[in-house]
């Protein structure tokens, strides 16, 4: 159970990093990625995964 970021679509705006309640989103060499072991899909925190809800690019944050 984790989300992932498709680097080919991501604009690296970092909005998801700011919203993630688990600090599961990191950046390395200007590419954002989700640390799967930290991602809870926001279950227990919010109704919808925050990265999906804030991402300006449809389909860039998807379920792994």
């Amino acid at each position: 159970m984790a989300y992932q970021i498709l680097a080919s679509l991501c604009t690296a705006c970092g909005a998801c990093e700011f919203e993630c309640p688990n600090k599961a989103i990191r950046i390395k060499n200007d590419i954002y990625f989700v640390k799967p072991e930290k991602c809870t899909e926001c279950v227990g925190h919010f109704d919808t995964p925050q990265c999906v809800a804030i991402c300006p690019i449809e389909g860039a944050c998807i379920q792994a």
Partner: protein
Amino acid sequence: MNQRVIALDSLLNTGVTKRKGCAASGCGGAADGPDDMAPEVWAKVRDHPCYSEGAHHYFARMHVAVAPACNIQCHYCNRKYDCANESRPGVVSERLTPEQAARKVLAVAAAVPQLSVLGVAGPGDALHDFTRTFETFTLVARTLPDLKLCLSTNGLALPDHVAAITALNIDHVTITINVVDPEVGTRIYPWIFFRNRRWTGLEASRILLERQMEGLERLVAAGVLVKVNSVMIPGVNDEHLKAVNAAVKQRGAFLHNIMPLISDPAHGTHFGLSGQRGPTPAELKELQDALAGGASLMRHCRQCRADAVGLLGEDRGQEFRLDQLSATTQTADPAPRLEYRAMVAEARADRRRAAKAAAVRLAPLADVLPRRVAVCTKGGGRINQHFGHAREFQVYEVDRTGVRFIGHRRADNYCGGGFGQDENLEAIIAALAGIDTVLAAKIGACPRSRLAEAGIAVIQTYAHEYIETSLSALFASGLAPQALAS
């Protein structure tokens, strides 16, 4: 490179420091402010190129791109593409951490004594990830306390940060407000992210509007100067912007800046791809004229990039890319900037005297239709630019009631790459639609005759004169002798 900045030497060469007819210490200071503005407001706006039309001739601003993330989606925005030749909001070449931004500001301040303002304007929303924005301001305020700080926001997160904004002495905030009717908003905002979920449709626009109005009211109550930006979208909110103007004026906005929608399929925005057009210069001016009695209208906006550096209308961002900053510590010495500001205060007082003299000259003239004239200027309120160097023109109207700045015409629109000189001249002629007279410091014979063919006269006789002085003389000279005699 230096000739792109108006600078100390251009002021020195134009008689500003000759101090003819005034006691050495008699001008400058408070006397440089306009008659109809409270001194405390003048103190806030006089060095800010975006808030005071006069200031953009003299002062430079820089935006640092520390805020890439945004909490709403607008149909006119797409931050995916970056082209160094493009000038439009939301576009940026390099994203910075707060520490990198502070280094960059220090480097620019050391090289550009005209620098007076640091802004965070995106490329996303300055108040979404507010930690980066406020950390940047905190770092810069520590090393360069003489710079004014400003930010721009869509307003959604604004009510949460009013206290922080006042604590950091950010005395200028721009809110982009495109609608005061959520129904109209649904055609501009597909969604917002608020309180940990995404909202769409009418509800999204309603929340955004409520938050914008709350933020505006609370900033005004806290004594922060608020500029409202609106994007004019023909067929969507063009007529509606009159209601927006009334609403923001009533809530105490200091300035209202109506900007034309920039719409091009190549930018990849929803409006660009769906064929929504932007307004023509004539449509924009018509709306601005209809609103002349509302909140003070800003007519000199250049729709800067979120990492713009320099005077409005120029962008020196490429000179100050992170990889070009020297590793050595830059000086934070404010002396050159303070000296420059004192000189500008004096220059402005001088120009104000010239403008008053021009008004005196115009007042007794015949009451005929205003004349519209484009001028080439590098700043300082003078006709001091060669036509061939002009990438934009300032447009003025003159009649017996005075000389009025009415806007800019840009001839370098958005992607100059690939254009030859001839095409450029055609672009300039197109940009000057409706104008038959241009005042320039100088023009070559070839473009001059090409413009004459297009019905545009370029006059060089007012080279290096003040704009007001020149336009009043031009207006007087255009009148029939009997009208002059009256």
